[in-house]
């Protein structure tokens, strides 16, 4: 096995809300190997954002990390104190956020923001400026010298996402977390950004944790996939495993619902009936059972355990063991 950059083990995160404890993540295991691109896919509310926030420790105040470890380059991120984790952010671990139009400060120029994030370096102002210009150039911003003094609202969404990527790569991190970086962009820009990410990843050599609900993008970009449902990892494997031989009913449904995979003309797009279950006061049993068409009696009683299909492919479903 190759050495891992990020190893998440049994991560469980709750949110304390008025109705009780919302179990947003339950026993999540994810491995990101050195230089690999790992996709995390799942519908809204499945815990993707909580996952990212747990890694960089920017969870809301009402979040409680109940269990688990997040090993990153030999240290457990959950054990670090505030200063130690802050030293990791933006240097070892960088994040590209979802909506580029709102993820940069609207009243500070790109130059100011790019200079601020280099505050740890001992370089002079002009060296920092030159580095920023080079970064902008590397992500394809034309005429960076005049554009760098502009403000976020003077850029288009695609350009801002390029800038976000440039900023995230500023310190050559070992892990880049991309939180649905293309969701807010239109389809042509999406392709450009994906290519840019892949390109830069191969140059910098960092690992990427790529969060998306777009299956096509995951298939195009990633080496392996983690399928999440309602706060659990239900299936995990290489892109080939998961897309060609989906083992979990949820993954199969998800692939059926992908409009890109539909061959016949239809007026009704397929959907997965039902909703994500309420994660407050969870009862025992499989989390997907209420929406699963092939649920067995055992699914009501026990949480399915992880079943290894091959050495690279695993899923949590009673049907695999039954």
């Amino acid at each position: 096995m190759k050495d891992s950059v990020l190893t998440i083990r049994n991560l469980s995160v709750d949110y304390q809300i008025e109705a009780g404890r919302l179990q947003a993540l339950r026993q999540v295991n994810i491995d990101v190997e050195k230089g690999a691109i790992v996709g995390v896919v799942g519908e809204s509310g499945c815990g993707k954002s909580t996952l990212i926030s747990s890694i960089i420790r920017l969870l809301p105040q009402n979040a409680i990390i109940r269990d688990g470890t997040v090993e990153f380059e030999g240290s457990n991120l959950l054990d670090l104190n505030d200063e130690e984790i802050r030293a990791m952010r933006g240097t070892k671990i960088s994040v590209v956020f979802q909506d580029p139009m709102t993820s940069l400060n609207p009243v500070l120029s790109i130059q100011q923001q790019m200079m601020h994030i280099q505050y740890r370096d001992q370089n002079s102002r002009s060296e920092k400026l030159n580095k920023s210009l080079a970064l902008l150039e590397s992500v394809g911003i034309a005429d960076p010298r005049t554009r760098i003094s502009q403000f976020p609202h003077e850029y288009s969404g695609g350009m801002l996402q390029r800038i976000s990527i440039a900023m995230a790569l500023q310190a050559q991190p070992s892990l880049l977390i991309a939180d649905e970086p293309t969701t807010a962009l239109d389809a042509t820009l999406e392709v450009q950004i994906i290519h840019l990410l892949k390109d830069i990843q191969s140059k910098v050599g960092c690992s990427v944790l790529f969060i998306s609900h777009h299956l096509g993008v995951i298939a195009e970009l990633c080496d392996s996939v983690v399928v999440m449902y309602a706060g659990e990892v239900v299936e995990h494997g290489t892109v080939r495993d998961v897309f060609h031989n989906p083992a979990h009913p949820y993954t199969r449904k998800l692939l059926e619902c992908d409009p890109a995979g539909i061959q016949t003309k239809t007026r009704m797009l397929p959907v997965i009936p039902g909703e994500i279950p309420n994660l407050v006061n969870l009862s025992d049993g499989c989390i997907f059972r209420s929406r699963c068409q092939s649920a067995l009696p055992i699914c009501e009683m026990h949480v399915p355990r992880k079943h290894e299909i091959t050495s690279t492919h695993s899923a949590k479903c009673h049907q695999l063991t039954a």
Partner: protein
Amino acid sequence: MLPYILKRVGLGIIIVLLAVALLFCMIHLIPGDPARIVLGPRATPELIAAMSARLGLDLPFPVQIMRFFTNLLRGDLGMDVITNRPVVEIVIGQLPYTLWLIFCAIIFAGLIGIPLGCYSALHRNTLFDRISGVISVSFITTPAFVVALYALLIFAVALQWFPSVGAGDRGDWLDQAMHLVLPVFSIGLAWVGYLARLVRASMLEVMEESHIRTARAFGLSERRVIYHYALKLAILPTVSVIGVGMGYLLSAALLTEIVFSRPGIGKLIYDSVITRNYPVVMGSVLVSTILFVASTTMSDLVNAWLDPRTRSNL
């Protein structure tokens, strides 16, 4: 930035001119002959006619308003009917007292209210936040003249820390400053509460925005995130409110100047209304209008300077 400034200043001038025209019409619509009122009930018709001619009231209305505007452009606001001094001189003489009062009150409110709001927002739902919330609201709801009366009773009469009446000796800065303390406190107190609430609310809103998360995800220090990334945005609504607030403080200043017998525009308006001294009323209201428009324009310009989005929209 320059086109924006020109545009805002031009707009300000138009607003002042319109407001003055409206004011002029309103004064003329009020029943009663100003000449008769000035001269009192026992004035002879000849005297009234002479006074009307002196004030230009015998001319047709359009001529009067034209004359008023041409005089205005020359900086001539007419003569005080009672002392026979130029109104401009009187108003300019009183203006600094009121300007200092309002200016100090806003500084006082800002220096206490803004940090208080920030601190409350960053320590949301703590005991401090709740107490400051209750205190802020009670400050807001207490009228300035009530605060003025109690401040006078407690700090001037009972404790004798500060002088009670007037504006202090001319040329003696310390004495003038001491005379400012209680009036500034009286009209600024409500604004302490108001600004604290406002800053708290906008700070809470900004801290939830996703660019704050980005700033933190880059490992920027919490100090920089709060004071550089959040406060610069959260302060924008406050700047606008202060601009309008300067105008409202003028009316608070009126009552406070009367309570403390301080000279100033408020006292001048009050006295000249009591004595039916229309040119002075007109002049002081005009100055108040200009002050109001100037302060809102200033706050717009400050906002544009702080917020590049406003700047490029115009």
